């Protein structure tokens, strides 16, 4: 082999290696690398039952109930297809409100209620003053819905 051919072989080997790496990476991104499960996945039994995991979804409007005399709250998480009842004892983050996307970490109880040990509020990448938000309301809710549905299945 001439030195020139030798160099070509080396370059080719590097390109093949990088190509294989890219192929694997692309495959992996289609797989379940999820940080959290959607309520639909919980209902269909995809989520683990024996250990704690994360559920993500929107807090359903009108579902938030506080137990009088304690810090316990109950609410329903939805991805507009299925919903999961969540119970949580503790201080909620400031962004927590109905219609808001949240991620809860905890365990599924036998009766299908999700007992959260921790509730984190996920805020979206949109920033705007309240007045603007008010005027956008119907539209914004529609996008919020598709977003939440999309989040579960990525």
């Amino acid at each position, binding site marked *: *082999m001439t030195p020139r051919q*030798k160099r070509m072989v*080396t370059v080719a*080997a*590097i*390109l*093949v*290696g*990088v190509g*294989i*790496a*890219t*192929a*694997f*990476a692309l*495959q*992996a991104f289609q*797989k*379940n*690398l999820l940080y959290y499960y959607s309520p639909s996945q919980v209902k269909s039994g995809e989520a*683990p039952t*024996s*250990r704690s995991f994360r559920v993500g979804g929107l807090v359903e409007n009108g579902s938030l109930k506080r137990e009088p005399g304690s810090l316990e709250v109950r609410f329903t998480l939805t991805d507009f297809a299925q919903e999961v009842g969540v119970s949580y004892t503790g201080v909620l983050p400031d962004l927590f409100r109905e219609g808001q996307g949240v991620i809860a970490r905890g365990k599924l109880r036998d009766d299908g209620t999700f007992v959260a040990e921790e509730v984190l509020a996920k805020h979206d990448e949109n920033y705007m003053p309240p007045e603007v938000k008010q005027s956008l309301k119907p539209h914004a809710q529609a996008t919020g819905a598709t977003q939440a549905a999309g989040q579960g299945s990525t």
Partner: protein
Amino acid sequence: MRRAAVSAAARLVFTRDLTLAWRRWDEVAQPLIFYVVVTTLFPLATTPDLTELRKIAGGVLWVAALLSSLLALESLFRSDVEDGTMEQWVLSGQPLGWLLLAKVACHWVLTGLPLVVISPIIGTALGLPFDAWGTLIVSLLLGTATLSVLGGIGAALTVGVRRGSVLLSLLVLPLAMPLLIFGSRAVTMAMDGDSPAGPLQLLAAIFFLVLSLGPLAMSAAIRISVES
């Protein structure tokens, strides 16, 4: 002239290191003993309860593997640089990257592979179910091999440096963190009955990326290290 082919040269490097290791087997065994000792520390320090232990088993095996690989890497190039062998390699007219890759491959066979072989047994002692053996082995195979190359870059950079071993961990550990994350995630997912394909594919992606670009970085680093 009968110039030796690159493959023949790489094979010579590989057999030379095997021969040397055979004559110094006690040094080669050290990382493996370290691995076993570190993993047995965890049940003593946390809890002997297997149901509790299995929750952290994946992480424990991976952290121990990472640390023991680092231990072995520190001396990877030292003697060859100090006795002048490495400058002869640089001047051999063979592509240095291939020679170094062969050396790292031999190093992996001597330190990474035994660790992979023994890890299911240690895993069982930590409560790892039989179902997760396959994932553990595959993830460690990919992970330790990647670590050998990554660590090779770090070792090549720090070979002529004061306090090289501390520096080596500072350089290699951040780069190795994705391995740790995906590797232990794969093991945990397999234990919980989920499909570990996602993290395993990411490990494979990192492995091939490091395998193809790592030798370039290693040879650049070695050329700098033989200057002194």
